[in-house]
């Protein structure tokens, strides 16, 4: 029982095998891709392994504290930001091997030409709980 985050990048991951940007796919290919993602999430819910899935807009803002009594400073988005997250899925699985297997399946989502994108997904373990018995 361990939770993992499957991170999908707009930028920052190595180039996928089927490296055609989405805006150059046919509408049917986009539909097929969306359907695959929905089916994948639905299947994981059935196996009792789905926790959460969200997609993010690429347009983000950087915000920081600017001192007492002053409004926060905002900046960006920065074109040079190397790592741009597109979305994630959180899974709850029994083993690391199962997490890798599922990430591999998600990476097979179809893209241009209906072929798998082979997209690189980042797999990150959540911190677990502090076990009661340690000694």
């Amino acid at each position, binding site marked *: *029982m361990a939770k993992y985050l499957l991170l999908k990048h707009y930028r920052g991951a190595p180039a996928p095998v089927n490296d055609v940007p989405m805006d150059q796919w046919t509408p049917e290919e986009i539909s097929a891709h969306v359907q695959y993602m929905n089916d994948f999430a639905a299947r994981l819910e059935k*196996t*009792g392994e789905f*926790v*959460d899935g969200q997609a993010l807009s690429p347009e983000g803002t950087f915000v920081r504290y600017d001192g007492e009594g002053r409004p926060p400073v905002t900046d960006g988005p920065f074109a040079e930001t190397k790592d741009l997250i597109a979305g994630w899925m959180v899974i709850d699985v029994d083993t690391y091997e199962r997490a890798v297997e599922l990430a591999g399946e998600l990476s097979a989502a179809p893209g241009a030409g209906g072929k798998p994108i082979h997209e690189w997904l980042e797999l990150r373990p959540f*911190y677990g709980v502090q076990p009661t*018995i340690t*000694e």
Partner: protein
Amino acid sequence: MGEVLLRGLTPSVLAILVRRGADFAAAEDAVQDALVEAVRVWPADPPRDAKGWLVTVAWRKFLDTTRADTSRRRREDRVDEEPAPGPAPALDDTLQLYFLCAHPSLTPSSAVALTLRAVGGLTTRQIAEAYLVPEATMAQRISRAKRTVSGVRFEQPGDVATVLRVLYLVFNEGYSGDVDLAAEAIRLTRQLATAIDHPEVAGLLALMLLHHARRPARTAPDGGLVPLAAQDRGRWDTGLIAEGVVILQAALARDRLGEFQAQAAIAALHADAPTAEETDWVQIVEWYDELGRLTDNPIVRLNRAVALGEADGPHAGLAALAELDTALPRHTAAAAYLHERAGDPATAARLYAEAATKAPNLAERTHLTRQAARLNTY
């Protein structure tokens, strides 16, 4: 009747339905429905016989569902006759339920979920909240688990070791939530101990009680981790410790040692020390040797090395540690601790910082980072 007492009736009510010929999955749903009904109705109209009431209501709900399913199916094909009640129980029914819910064909997470629902009487929502997953996901996990064990005969004897592993998981890796899973694991292990006389069941119960006794002292007001040596022993629950020690001694007297009894013996030696300095580390090392003979778990050897560092000095501990795989969880943290005790704060600080990056949870990472910072800023 409180919710916990009510849930305590779950396994015997469920077993009665199964004995009457209901299939496990449908009977389990019916018992859940009856529990929900009891919570709703009982405050205003408490029954004289709680268990009888639950059996009646659960059986009625089972029949209602079965009839609805049957009339739906009748249009398509003939329905099988109601199965005859099984033979007279050879083993305690409650025990059979524990075996079924921890069946080896289940993954650990599904065995945990099924046990908490079918034996513990928790709702799917409570279990989902406790393990921080959506209710729909937990519902599917439980119904898959039920399908997995649907072919297992109820009377089939199981292995108590698989049940103990599931209960250990609930206790040790329980998330904090609305439901206190550590307390629930203790309740389920107590219930198991009344259903079967087995020294390892007693050993696990003792282990849980002895660790639960320290819970108030394990966490600092800021939520940080307080290691054993730094805990305020005045905050340990002496009632739980006394109970755990009595249960453990009775189990050990039967001379059928197992790993949970050995772990409990180590916990008891810690509990017995009025201060950290007075801990009987020599005996603890001996128990780790026993434990090492009972399991081939390398974590045991790591813990033994740390205990040896206390019994025979940090250099002996470091020598024992050097024989172990450095990739073991908490190896670096143990090395940091022993180097500090050996009078090498610079190495210790570097290792604490390294250990922090490998910590398996946030509480340990923060704790290890704090240790590195303490040594770096002196």
